[in-house]
């Protein structure tokens, strides 16, 4: 009996060992670094019909040349990472998938050029008074909404009360300091601000303030507007089947033409399909189920680069990923801990875990190297990966009898590192955890929360806006003017601090970092339109970050739109005045310049 059992076990063990041995690839040796692999992937990238292709290190941002056209007709089906719950620019939360829909239904007053300047779209120009408190904007004539109504200055003025009460626009109006909007002519609008803001036009490139909707319809049917939006854009909502497909059809009366005077858009239809799983979305593109897709994931870009027959429009913008410390909570209230943990962040390994080697650039500030606001001095000052330096700083805190976390001298610090439950983010935080714990001074608890919980923990409405977060994965920045995000991101984090210092309160100061001097620089930066002056102020802000480290960085967020062969014009859009646009920031496609060719 015993012999039979032994035979059985022996067979299984032998089977297991043979399986292991057969799989030997001779890989006992540590092999080439993943960075080298990543560089090879970049070389093997599919062709990008780029007029300007900025290559920084091994990452790519491409802008396609405007196409000659026209080749009319056809349909593009775009795979999106999520559904857009609502399409009201003043009310509904909107991320990249939603913006992909909105930008084709609505026009904005201004757009961002390829030099990241606001350039006129529905507006022709805008000019301030001496102290930047009054801005007069002129509008383009001959523009109509999808329902036939005319667009004019009164439209913009009538949008104001709706925007004031809007969940999205209300905060943006406050941040921009807008106190009044008046139609001062048929096509002239005057904005009055509570305080001077030299970067005010940047707010008009955004969705909350810059997107033009029909105010009359928005008032009469606000709920219906969410699913049946009416704009002046190149496409009209034809069918909205939530979680399945949103179909837009050509606006035959669209006001804009291409540079040769041909009417836009070229396509007959665009369909948007939410396909949340990254792999499935890419497979859908490769198989032809969809013929375009957007992604914000570096791992997907990596895989798409390897696929045949795809054209990728990548964008390496200012948006930077990493994490934030809750600076009002021990032990993160101590600079030594924040800086020490940041020294222990191996950016290359984290980017690799995110699938971004050769795609994303390591971050050192809120601006990418191709941004006009980028500072080499800040890059040099940022705490680099340095285990001895990081360990020394944390050791100093651990040995400090006055340490803020109340633990005994010599005890390890407790850190909760939290990210949303995305496979690549989880891999990245395990890399961070491994280095932090390797010092023997840090106990790390990894937690995952869905995106909404993750944000609410940082928002901290129930805790006086302090939040219940410790060290959190986060993303910051955009390709807009720095004032549009920095001034709100680092205003007073709690009402109590706001009252004490007599400054605005901001619920979105998620790291809870309050530095009156630095906030003063941010305020100063919108009182002048002199670039050099502003650059110096933002450089000081970023230098302060490098010293105080309220946040840490992994890499800049590479995004991409992928299309199948024959689809052109994705990133080569131009403004009505012929200025080359910014391309596809945040994987946002202006599909009105897209056409389908034979090949």
């Amino acid at each position, binding site marked *: *009996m015993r012999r*039979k*059992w032994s035979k*059985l*076990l022996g*067979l*299984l*063990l032998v089977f*297991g060992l043979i399986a*292991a*041995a*057969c*799989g*030997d*690839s*001779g*890989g*006992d040796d*540590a*092999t*080439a*670094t*993943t960075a080298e692999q990543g560089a090879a992937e970049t070389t093997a990238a599919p062709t990008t019909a780029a007029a300007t292709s900025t290559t920084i290190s091994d990452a790519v941002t491409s802008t396609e040349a405007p196409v000659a056209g026209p080749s009319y007709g056809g349909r593009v089906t775009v795979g999106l990472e999520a559904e857009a719950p609502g399409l009201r620019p003043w009310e509904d939360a909107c991320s990249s998938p939603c913006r992909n829909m909105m930008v084709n239904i609505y026009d904005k007053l201004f757009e961002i050029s390829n030099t990241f300047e606001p350039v006129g779209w529905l507006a022709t120009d805008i000019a301030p008074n001496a102290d930047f408190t009054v801005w007069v904007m002129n509008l383009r004539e001959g523009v109509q909404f999808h329902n036939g109504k005319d667009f004019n200055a009164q439209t913009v003025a009538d949008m104001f009360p709706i925007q004031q009460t809007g969940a999205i626009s209300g905060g943006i109006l406050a941040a921009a300091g807008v106190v009044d909007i008046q139609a001062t002519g048929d096509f002239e609008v005057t904005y009055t601000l509570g305080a001077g803001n030299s970067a005010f036009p940047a707010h008009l490139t955004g969705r909350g303030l810059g997107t033009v909707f029909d105010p009359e319809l928005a008032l009469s049917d606000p709920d219906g507007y969410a699913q049946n939006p009416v704009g002046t854009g190149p496409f009209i909502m034809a069918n909205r089947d939530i979680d399945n497909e949103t179909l837009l059809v050509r606006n035959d009366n669209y006001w804009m033409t291409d540079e040769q005077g041909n009417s836009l858009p070229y396509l007959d239809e665009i369909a948007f399909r939410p396909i949340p799983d*990254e*792999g499935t979305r890419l497979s859908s593109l490769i198989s032809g189920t969809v013929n375009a897709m957007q992604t914000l*994931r570096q*791992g997907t870009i990596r*895989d798409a680069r*390897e696929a045949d027959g795809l054209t990728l429009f990548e964008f390496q913008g200012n948006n930077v990923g990493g994490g934030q410390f809750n600076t009002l909570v021990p032990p993160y209230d101590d600079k030594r801990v924040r800086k020490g943990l940041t020294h222990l962040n*191996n950016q290359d*390994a984290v980017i*690799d*875990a995110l*699938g971004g080697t050769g795609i994303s650039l390591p971050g050192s500030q809120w601006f990418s190297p191709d941004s006009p606001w980028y500072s080499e001095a800040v890059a040099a000052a940022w705490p680099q990966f340095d285990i001895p330096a990081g360990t020394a700083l944390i050791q100093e805190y651990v040995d400090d009898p006055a340490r803020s976390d109340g633990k005994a001298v010599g005890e390890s610090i407790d850190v909760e590192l939290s990210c949303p*439950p995305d*496979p*690549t983010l*989880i*891999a990245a*935080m*395990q*890399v961070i*955890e*491994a*280095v932090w714990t*390797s010092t023997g001074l840090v106990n790390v*608890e*990894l*937690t*995952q929360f869905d995106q909404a919980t993750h944000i609410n923990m940082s928002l901290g409405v129930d805790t006086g806006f302090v939040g219940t977060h410790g060290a959190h994965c986060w993303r910051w920045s955009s390709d807009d003017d720095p004032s549009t995000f920095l001034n709100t991101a680092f205003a007073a984090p709690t009402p109590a601090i706001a009252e004490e210092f007599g400054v605005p309160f901001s619920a979105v100061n998620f790291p809870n970092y309050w530095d009156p001097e630095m906030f003063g620089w941010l305020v100063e930066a919108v009182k002048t339109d002199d670039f050099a002056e502003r650059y110096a102020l933002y450089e000081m802000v970023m230098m302060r970050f490098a010293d105080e480290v309220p946040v840490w960085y992994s890499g800049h967020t590479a995004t991409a739109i992928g299309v199948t062969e024959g689809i052109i014009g994705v990133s080569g859009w131009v403004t009505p005045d012929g200025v080359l646009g910014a391309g596809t920031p945040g994987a946002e496609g202006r599909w009105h310049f897209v056409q389908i060719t034979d090949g």
Partner: protein
Amino acid sequence: MSEAAIIERVLESGSADRDEELLFASMSWGVRLAVGWMFIVIFLATFAAWIPFVRDPNYLFGLFEGYDNNAGPSRKFWLGTDSIARDNFARLVYGARVSLTVGSVAVACGLVVGGFLGSLVGFYRGKAEAITMALVDVVLAFPGLVLLLVMVSITQKRSLFVISLVVGLLSIPPYTRVARANALSVTNREYVEAARAIGTRPMRILVREVIPNVIPSLIAYALIAAAFIMVLEGSLAFLGLSVQPPTATWGQMIFQARSDMRLSVWPVVYPSAALVFTVLSLNIIGDWLRQRNATRSAAI
């Protein structure tokens, strides 16, 4: 020799060695392989920390020693490495711990609480039975995964203890139902009637006559239910709602590896295969026990 005849001989022989031999003889090759697989899995999972060829499952060989991510099988890494260059074999072995722990706790909770509760209400009947079974029906009416998601979401912190406890609590109703059905059947048997007739106290009948005859059916069910629970835990892990990383679980291994599937499919295949083989083994063993138990009951 038919299984019934084997069982008959087992009952007649009274010899422990003979019992063991006949038990083995009654197993098909499928059952033997299933038992062997479970033995290996349980052995490795239990003694992983002391087995020299099972490395630290959370050690990043890429970061600290320069090995490749998503590397193929080699002499050093039998099953290759994952997306951050951890040893897939070590993670597979340690991942079994979570699956087995959750499965075992669910079985224990189900057997002890559900088994006793079901036997109790099945034997005594009355209002207690009506109320208990109504509650059981309500719980069973919810899709298991949805209910599990709700409970796990409420707990926020997700340690192995919490996950096991939640799964264990949710395991009680089905065991209650199975135990009650069997208790109803056993209660009508002649030997129970006889015990009643001679004035044996009801609680003694329950403990001495009913529960011992309910247990074999529950054990057969437990193995199949444990397999289901393992899949459930895998689903939870895949949804990011099981034990927190870096603790290895099979479901989490699949979840994490899927983002690199185009680079290497093996990190997905290994835990998936382990889960399939384990679930299959438990089902085969459970079926075998159920058949064996049915034959024995018929013989009695």
